[in-house]
């Protein structure tokens, strides 16, 4: 895979960012597959886009706004009912070591 578009280290990095725990076999498999996808998409580089404005959205519309009006929320019961793990009030997730939510 000398001229592959993505190397093993990049795949490991992306998996880490996505919190995916991949086996060595999967890493190798995804490196090949992602490489093929990137190679296919690279055909687009044949086009000269130097004079084309980047497109922010594929629809030719803007300013889809709504009034600041309250709509009914789901409520706690419905919200947590499909949670993989819950105590009936909160979503339960594996213990977070570092408390730093929000911005």
């Amino acid at each position, binding site marked *: 895979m000398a001229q592959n578009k993505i190397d093993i280290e990049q795949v490991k*990095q992306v998996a*880490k*960012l*996505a*919190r995916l725990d991949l086996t060595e076999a999967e890493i190798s498999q995804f490196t090949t597959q992602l490489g093929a996808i990137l190679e296919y998409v690279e055909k687009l580089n044949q086009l000269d886009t130097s004079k084309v404005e980047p497109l*922010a*959205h*594929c*629809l030719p*519309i*803007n*300013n*889809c*706004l*709504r*009034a*600041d*009006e*309250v*709509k*009914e*929320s*789901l*409520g*706690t019961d419905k*919200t*947590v009912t499909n949670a993989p*793990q819950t*105590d009936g*009030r*909160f*979503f*339960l*997730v*594996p*213990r*977070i*070591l*570092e*408390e*730093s*939510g*929000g*911005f």
Partner: protein
Amino acid sequence: MTDSDYKIIVGLEIHVQLATRTKMFCGCELAFAEDPNSRVCPTCLGLPGALPVMNAQAVEFAILTATALNCKIAEFTKWDRKSYYYPDLPKNYQISQYDLPIGSNGFIEIPLSDGQTKKIRILRVHLEEDAGKNVHTSGNFSQVDLNRAGTPLLEIVTEPDMNSAEEVRALAIELQRIVRFLGVSQADMQKGHMRFEPNVNLHIERGGSTSKTPITEVKNLNSFKALEKSVAFEAVRQFDEFLDTGICLQSGNKKTFGWDDVKEVTVLQREKEEAHDYRYFPDPDLVPVVVNEEWLERIKTKLCELPLKMQSRFISEYGLSDYDAGVLTTDKEMAKYFDDTVKTGADAKRVCNLITQTGIKIANEKGCGVAQLGIEPTRLAALAKITDDGKISATAAVTVFEKMLESKDSPDKIAQQLDLLQRSDEGELEKIVDEVITANAQAVEDVKSGGKKSKKAHGFLMGQVMQKSKGKANPQIVAKILGSKLGS
């Protein structure tokens, strides 16, 4: 080496929670201290198929604030996804604005302790959504509450133009006043409506060259006091560290510290691996925002006189002290109430005293603002006037003020009803003065002989007259009569 050999460089990243009724991209109501996970819907939960729709009010609040911060407003902006994985972020990305912020290249003017002001440049102002909260960790689990997820936040980033902890605090307080004046945020720090993250480093002069210390970002600041103290602490810590290690600023050696409110120190946080690989890209679920001239003008009509400008007007036009003008302009309603009262012709200093010394205390007890006490500007002006004219004493004015809360009568009439009117009848007061003079020959002697004792004796005689009149004599007139009789 002394302290003067280094200069503190601080820039701020600020998050302001907007005071909309609903979230940024869905109709869930913003709620503080509600039942956990009660204010969520498929959109803010990030369930498949749910589509976000922009809250017009949030966009307008953002534009209004950016305008007040002298920013250039983008004619065209869009939404981007900032991807990272964390339990409080249900979609695994945050909707934010990356390369086209709604406002850029502005400035905020902050008051300095010497009465001058300083311009701090604003790099950018953009809108984004908040994450949820990781509430509590027990055993092997953490509890996640998503009520806050999707709350509209305004992120404001300043240039590193602040050079002391005091300037950082001044900016924070000024920004709080501004967003409250504009009505775009409640800006309560304890409730997390405003979050400040300073980026701090030092420029150290040594041997004719300047060394820069690595930048640290400080998090977990829940009060203005913590913000100011953390910057002061970081400066000293970085200086000591530089003397120890000599390590200088390089790309990639920025560190994140958390503020420990109890120990009042900054603590190095565990480094997040590749934390900045957010892989931004335009959100296909949201269409761009185009701000045309007409819309912008309509938003601008909601601009008001900003607090710092109002404060300096109160000083220059009404002759108030910087302190008094500062107190009055902490709150827009109060500032306007004061302004309206003075404009009816009342004495500014007197009105200021009535509001800041009596009004604020009563309003705090009642849990409302001074302007909401139900005393119209014209009635407050009337109270100021009868106090100024000497019809009632300053002490009596407080009593009348309190009574005015429950009575619609004029202050004059209330003073009459409560028997608080001062006696200003010169003939009547002269009689009392004569009696006092006759009864206190020694004091009269002391006043006449001048010197040290004179002033004290004069005060004593004044006191006697006030006592005899049961506190109702107009002190100015008594002083006048005493003066003419004793030639003092």
